[in-house]
């Protein structure tokens, strides 16, 4: 393990995570398709997970990895619920363009 981290360097992990996170943010902001938005959110989540694991190794502390397990379990549940919502939106509106979801307006 030491080798991997030493060979690549912690800073590269951080750069990768930040890039992934930014990709996710821009995906959420710019895409109209609900599924793409959804995937972008997953990318952001995984960017954070990656950072957790990297720092866990760096500090020699397994707590970070345990946390990632929790976060992945929650993400799985979230995906299940989210996809169900997207399916039901598609059934109701015939499209999953988020601009069509203005009915949520108060």
């Amino acid at each position, binding site marked *: 393990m030491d080798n991997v981290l030493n060979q690549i360097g912690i800073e590269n992990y951080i750069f990768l995570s930040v890039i992934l996170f930014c990709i996710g943010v821009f995906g*959420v*902001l710019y895409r109209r398709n609900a599924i793409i938005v959804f995937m972008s959110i997953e990318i952001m989540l995984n960017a954070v997970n990656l950072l957790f694991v990297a720092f866990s190794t760096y500090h020699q502390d397994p707590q970070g990895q345990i946390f990632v397990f929790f976060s992945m379990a929650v993400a799985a549940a979230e995906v299940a619920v989210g996809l169900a919502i997207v399916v039901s939106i598609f059934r109701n509106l015939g499209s999953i363009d988020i*601009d069509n979801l*203005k009915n949520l*307006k*108060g």
Partner: protein
Amino acid sequence: MDTNLALVLLLAPFLGFLINVFFGKSLGKSVSGFIGTGTVVVSFVVTLVFFLQINQNGKPIQISLFDWISINGFKVDFGFLLDQLSLLWLMFVTGIGALIHLYSISYMHDDENMHKFFAYLNLFVFFMISLVMGSNLLVMFIGWEGVGLCSYLLIGFWYKNQDYNDAAKKAFIMNRIGDLGLLIGIFILATLFSTLDFAQLKTAILSGTNTNTCWIAAAALALFIGACGKSAQIPLYTWLPDAMAGPTPVSALIHAATMVTAGIFMITRLNFLFGMDIDTMHVVNTIIAVIGAVTALVAATIGLVQNDIKKVLAYSTVSQLGLMFLALGLGAYEVAVFHVITHAFFKACLFLGSGSVIHALHGEQDMRKMGGLKKAMPVTFITMLISSLAISGIFPLAGFWSKDEILMVAYEHNKVLYIIGSIASIMTAFYMFRLMYLTFFKDFRGTEEQKHHLHESPALITFPLIVLAILAAIGGAISLPGNSWLNNYLAPLFAEKAGEAHGLGGEQYMLMGIAMAGALIGIGYAYSKYIKQNQIPEEDSEITGFSKVLYNKYYVDEAYEFLFVKPVNVLSRFFRDYVETAVSGVVFGLAKVTGELGYQGKKLQNGNIGFYLFVFVFGVCAMITYIFLAK
């Protein structure tokens, strides 16, 4: 046993009130009338039992129902006191009350709201009984306020006429001014003696431990202001003549015989306070006597020229009440009480008689349109004649004895007050016989149609008249000079032995002679003016000179309007136009700002998810920037 009987006495009229309020309409007019009358008769019978009892053994009955208020040593019982004074008052409140209820059954029979009338009347009797029976000032105050309320309700009984409503409001407001005085007096007494119980107050005052003479006199003065309001004395008397807007039985019961004597009752009840031998109290007593005498004179002069039969009697009542206050101010409490009783007899009779006349003429109250009723209404005529002779002070009717006693007391203390009182008495004789001559003598001056319908009133109306006329004739027997049952009966009430009934020396005979001669002069003058010269008072527009001032009641109402009503109106208009506008401007402004903010903020919630997400991300970035960079 006594407690139960006393509760029956108190609550019987209240029960009548409840029945008439809730079931009166469905029970029908006659039944509701007889329930109203019956409950008061029950009270009268119970009063009679108590009265005979106390007349024999002279022991007052004190009843305490429960602790009402108990704060830090200051305690007020909800209790009743049946002593000589309260039982005497109850006798004529329930007795005359029952007669007037009986009278009302016939008098009000054509009114659609008869059950309401009896409900109010019963409620009045209930409150009057609690006023008289209260064992402390606070229970008395409940009754005091209650009778004021009933007076208001009954003056405005024919509520469809706006003038009557105004009269009712006037009576209520005038009474409230007096009630404020009464309350202040009660507060001062409570502070000084930390008790409101009559018996304890008496002990505390007679022991002479409290030497705060200024405050004691201030309390007495404040209480007297309360009495002024209720008993229609200057400067609060103007409501009573207007109160004649109510049905005539109301005028007889409330505004002649019972409620307006509450002020005299209260002062007599507190005779130990008003009779204190301290300088400040002498000043208060002088004020009372002077106000009484001036009221007697002023009201009598106004009564000289009134043409409304009930207005004449109303000013006569104010004038007689003034004489009673004159007696109170001079410390002759038993004399004032004596006059209250005889006045209740003959004034109730006069009012009921005038009601009988008004009834026969279908609501006509103007004496210029009456006349010649002697033949058509013999019973009404004879009973009213007896009462008029009594109020004028003709020997040996009731008014002669009581009025004479007041004048004798005045003569002993102060010749000026005596002369004022005598002039008022002469005027009384004049205007009463002016009323009699205009109403019953000569020819009828009304319309032909009224003339055909002239008739004597039914027995339910004439019976109370006859009873009251008999009482007005012989009522003086309860306190004859030299052998006064009343003075002996009331003696336990007074701190010092009540003044012995006046012996019959030469001076007394002379005073009686003068009073009698004065009354005859008044009657004679009325006779020459209205019978011999056959005068009839002019139309309103033709009245000139001083009699115009009198006819318009010295313009007191106008003066009050100018001095009090107008400024209050100006003030309230100022508050409405400026203060309220400013305050509501601020309040509405705040509401407007909030509303506008909300309206603009609403636009943020446009439902565009992309926009939401952008704001969300932007917010997170801003927070992160703040946390990591700004710190």
